[in-house]
């Protein structure tokens, strides 16, 4: 009970609490207050640039659920998150396994492979827009030379494939983090286990399944969850590359919400989209926190 007695009285507590004050103030004003304000705005008819607005209850949400574009974006988000996460993690795992060798220069290879991950979103968008270019892009060139297409091909203008074409740079940027995390996990596998398994005559595949997988499973689980959360809300790449188009074929909830707020200027309606995304994020995050907590 010493704690209670000294809780406010002693300078012993000034340091630890005082040290957190700037951080907490920043988080409250820049993150928490806007979150709450956003939740409130979703029940209003707030326009971005006018100051007067009124409470309209759940009307934004009933409108949203009848909005075809919302469901289209939601469907795109599902495909986007599933393929983006799967792609990042599988590629990351494959490369982590491949580079898990004690050979000279492996560290340099790994470091260079991190570069896509630190490429700014707008940079990645410009790079890939250039690669996808109809006339002189390398991908159009490749498709033509292999006979898959007959002439200049407007890749990003094709509504049937554009979503997948944005997922490729997404994976390109996403795999390095998975590779890094899984490399760290692979290092924690005790070598004696492999030796013991070799004595028992296990082959590489059996060793992988019965030794490697169980050790890296927690990392895989956390990574999957984090990737889903991040990718679900991903914005910059799509917005800069296609702005959700053409004809909403690559529209995601994030681009839909952003355009509703800053192009149509309907802040209230945009907030209702964010609120739905926020609820989904909250569910995923609470699973994540619980998982991390158990890990500790």
């Amino acid at each position, binding site marked *: 009970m010493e704690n209670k007695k000294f809780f406010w009285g002693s300078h012993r507590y000034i340091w630890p609490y005082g040290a957190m004050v700037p951080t907490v103030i920043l988080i409250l004003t820049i993150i928490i207050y806007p979150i709450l304000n*956003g939740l409130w705005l979703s029940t209003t008819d707030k326009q971005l640039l006018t100051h007067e607005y009124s409470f309209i209850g759940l009307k934004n949400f009933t409108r949203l659920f009848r909005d075809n574009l919302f469901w289209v974006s939601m469907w795109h988000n599902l495909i986007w998150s599933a393929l983006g996460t799967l792609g990042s993690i599988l590629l990351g795992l494959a490369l982590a396994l491949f580079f898990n060798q004690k050979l000279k220069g492996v560290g340099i290879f790994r470091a260079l492979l991190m570069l896509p991950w*630190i490429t*700014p979103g707008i940079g990645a968008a410009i790079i890939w827009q250039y690669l996808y270019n109809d006339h002189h892009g390398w991908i159009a060139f490749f498709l033509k030379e292999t006979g898959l297409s007959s002439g200049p091909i407007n890749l990003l203008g094709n509504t049937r494939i554009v979503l997948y074409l944005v997922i490729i740079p997404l994976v390109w940027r996403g795999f390095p983090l998975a590779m890094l995390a899984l490399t*760290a996990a692979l290092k924690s596998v005790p070598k004696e286990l492999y030796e013991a398994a070799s004595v028992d005559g296990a082959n590489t595949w059996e060793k992988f399944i019965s030794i490697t997988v169980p050790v890296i499973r927690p990392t895989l689980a956390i990574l999957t969850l984090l990737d889903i*959360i991040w990718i679900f809300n*991903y914005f910059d790449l799509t917005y800069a590359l296609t702005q959700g188009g053409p004809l909403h074929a690559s529209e995601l909830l994030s681009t839909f919400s952003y355009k509703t*707020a800053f192009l149509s200027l309907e*802040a209230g309606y945009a907030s209702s989209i964010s609120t739905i995304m926020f609820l989904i994020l909250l569910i995923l995050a609470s699973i994540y926190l619980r998982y991390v907590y158990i890990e500790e």
Partner: protein
Amino acid sequence: MAQRKRKIWRLVIYVGFYSVALMILGIILFPFVDLFFSSFKSLPEFGKYPPHLFPKRFSLQNYEYLFRLGSFGRVLFNSILVASFVTVLSLLIGSIAAFSIARFRFRGQSALSKFILFVYMFPSVLLVTPLFITIRSLGLVDSLWSLILADTTFALPFSIWMLVGFFSSIPKQLDEAARIDGCTHGQVLWRIIVPLARPGIAAAGAFSFLLSWSEFVFAITFIQSSQNRTLSAELLSLVGYASNMRPGVIIAGCVLAVVPVYILFLIIQRHIVDGLTLGAVKS
């Protein structure tokens, strides 16, 4: 005989490994290599079919045009300014907070840590509409301070997590000894912890710099006049404006946005990677 055979085998494995590794590297970094060389192509070389990787003659006209076109120098300056401020602020605020988490036990500590961890996952796009309204009521629209504040807040949680990891790895006996010698907590942090954790601090600082340099949503939303733009917004406007007329100019701009962060990352990547694995994965 057997030994020689083994040597040959080893050589085969080496050669195989390195050639596959180089191939992987080539494929994954190809987009960037292509971009880099293309930035030196002159206008007639764009749109040629088949595409070629190396420019026939290295020309700097894209870069020249980029700076003549308008305010790119100013934009670079703004980005450096904002990112530097964010780095300094998040290190200052972050190391005090990290010291508190790493060295004290206090009520609500784990709740607070978890709260910070939660914020770290929070995507900026969900916030941008209400935050824009907050920024406007603070009178900071079109001010670089809006970006500094927002980016610092988003950089902080992760910086704190990295720093806590690095600080905790410094033996506690060192600060106890300093305390006995009459140091205050602040002096312990400044004279003992900070110098010893220098690589970790550099990593957290680089992380904050990278985050601010690459930040997109706030940069395109809060800033309205072209003279206050930072890189992301400027590049986005170039994409809309000139993608078909002068592809080389955008590409040059992109190279200038990307190369500094690549260099920064490669210099201290080992520490960033340590911080990431300390903070994010094991957490």
